[in-house]
């Protein structure tokens, strides 16, 4: 058996989610190959070749893969699938977009967002916003899996020396075209891979109050997140959203500020190692999962916390 992992990258470097996905692939029996498909992405293929445990890097470089459009990526995966028992991608918006289109073309029932691997054909995944865990077995000849990245350790970035093999492109479908992007720029760590996350909810009352959280985040080297309520209200952009339908995070420390703790939000953060909740409503459900709860008005508590971090 050989396993194919689809690298997520931006044509200049690998995204951290790729390393967790390779970590998951390492729990299956067989050599692991990594597909780097993009445009002008030779540096990514070279970076990938350094990952220990990768037997081969498959480098497919063509303009139609520049924006990873699913209509172009899926025929490429189909053309390669015959050589593999499993194809894995991270359960990020990249993997969620591309994989099901390939799965349908391969007539394979994809298993989404796996959080555990029982054997080569049996996988565990959360359903109902993580309120239940399903163990499912697949008999499809090629199994397509997206991987909950917080559930698998990332592999090391260097130390290996895999062979890089060039793969022929599969052509441009012409069905969709990239028309622009508004990518959030931040000096802070990426939300899904940060060791510490500070998140704000509806209790923040306005986007103008988020700098209070950013100040704490910067002292802790943390990423800033938000609940759906805060994103829907326009306080912060969509890529801040933690929850069932946003990002799933599992940092060492998650600080929830002014977040009530709806099940849809808990679904995205309850695997965090330590949870702190600051909320003035002592009945808020967030306190039921918090290791350290502080019942307080956040507009008083957050500046005090900021000062206490300085004092230490």
């Amino acid at each position, binding site marked *: 058996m050989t396993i194919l992992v689809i690298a997520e990258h931006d044509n200049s470097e690998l995204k951290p989610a790729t390393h967790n996905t390779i970590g998951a692939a390492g729990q299956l029996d067989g050599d692991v190959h990594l597909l780097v498909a993009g445009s002008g992405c030779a540096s990514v293929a070279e970076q990938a070749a350094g990952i220990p445990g990768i037997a081969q890097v498959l480098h497919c470089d063509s303009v139609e893969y520049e924006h990873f459009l699913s209509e172009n990526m899926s025929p490429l995966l189909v053309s390669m699938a015959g050589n593999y028992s499993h194809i894995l991608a991270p359960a990020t*918006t990249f993997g969620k977009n591309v994989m099901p289109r390939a799965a*349908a073309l391969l007539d394979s*029932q994809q298993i989404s967002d796996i959080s555990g691997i029982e054997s080569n054909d049996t996988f565990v995944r959360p359903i109902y916003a993580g309120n239940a*865990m399903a*163990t499912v077995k697949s008999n499809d000849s090629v199994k397509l899996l997206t991987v909950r990245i917080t559930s698998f350790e990332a592999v090391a970035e260097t130390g290996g020396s895999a062979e890089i093999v060039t793969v022929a492109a599969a052509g441009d479908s012409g069905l969709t075209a990239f028309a622009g992007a508004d990518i959030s720029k931040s000096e802070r760590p990426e939300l899904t891979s940060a060791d510490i996350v500070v998140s704000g909810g509806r209790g923040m009352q306005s986007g103008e109050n988020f700098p209070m959280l950013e100040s704490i985040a910067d002292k802790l080297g943390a990423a800033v997140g938000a609940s759906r309520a805060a994103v829907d209200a326009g306080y912060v952009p*969509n890529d801040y959203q933690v929850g*069932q*339908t946003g990002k799933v995070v599992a940092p060492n420390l998650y600080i929830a500020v002014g977040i009530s703790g709806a099940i849809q939000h808990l679904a995205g953060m309850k695997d965090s190692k330590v949870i702190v909740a600051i909320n003035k409503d002592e009945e808020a459900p967030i306190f039921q999962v918090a290791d350290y709860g*502080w019942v307080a008005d956040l507009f008083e508590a957050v500046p005090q916390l900021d000062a206490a971090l300085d004092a*230490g």
Partner: protein
Amino acid sequence: MKILVPVKRVIDANVKVRVKSDQSGVELANIKMAMNPFCEIAVEAALRMREAGQADEVIVVSAGVSQCHETLRTGLAMGADRAILIEDDQDLEPLVVAKLLKAVCEREEPGLVLLGKQAIDGDNNQTGQMLSALLGWSNATFASSIEVNDDHFKVTRELDSGLESVTANRPSVITVDLRLNEPRYASLPNIMKAKKKPMDKLTAADLGVDSSPRLQVVKVEEPPARQAGIKVSSAEELVDKLRNEAKVI
């Protein structure tokens, strides 16, 4: 343009889900069911296109047990013109649903299929992408805005890294995200009117699709429970606990 909106009947988003004691699934008997919230957003988007003169018919379609007719009535009460129920008692996987919808698309020839990006029961996030593959149509996922043009749709997509816009050739399959709109409530007169709107009934066999599941559900369990911890009463106490007890800062 005709718009097809597939909708799913799921446990109401406000109901606490319980796992069955025999680990065969989650408890569905006597539980309040509702239209999947993302599907409501898709229905709303279709209705707004019709109201803007960009579409002339909105068809809601649902596949599943006979009670899915209630979910379709909700879509009709919101304003859809007619409904199609594909009745099947099996647990329908996304690939099966995509095959059923493909067959419906071949009969109805819509210019656009609008779906929710995921259902809040299985959290699979697959059906729209799979349908687009089977039809060979363009696909835009996680839409937070959709602009209808003569030969294409311009779609803003919500990504982990921010926003992206793409142009998708018509016909297309578009899956919708939370920020696209706020769905309307059905008014009482419209709920009454919906009872008279046409609903066709089909089966998987009518559509030539094998609806049996591919995956075997070995078991469904409760997740590990998290215990509430302690309360702190000052910033100094919190920082001390995080530094010296939890050792996470």
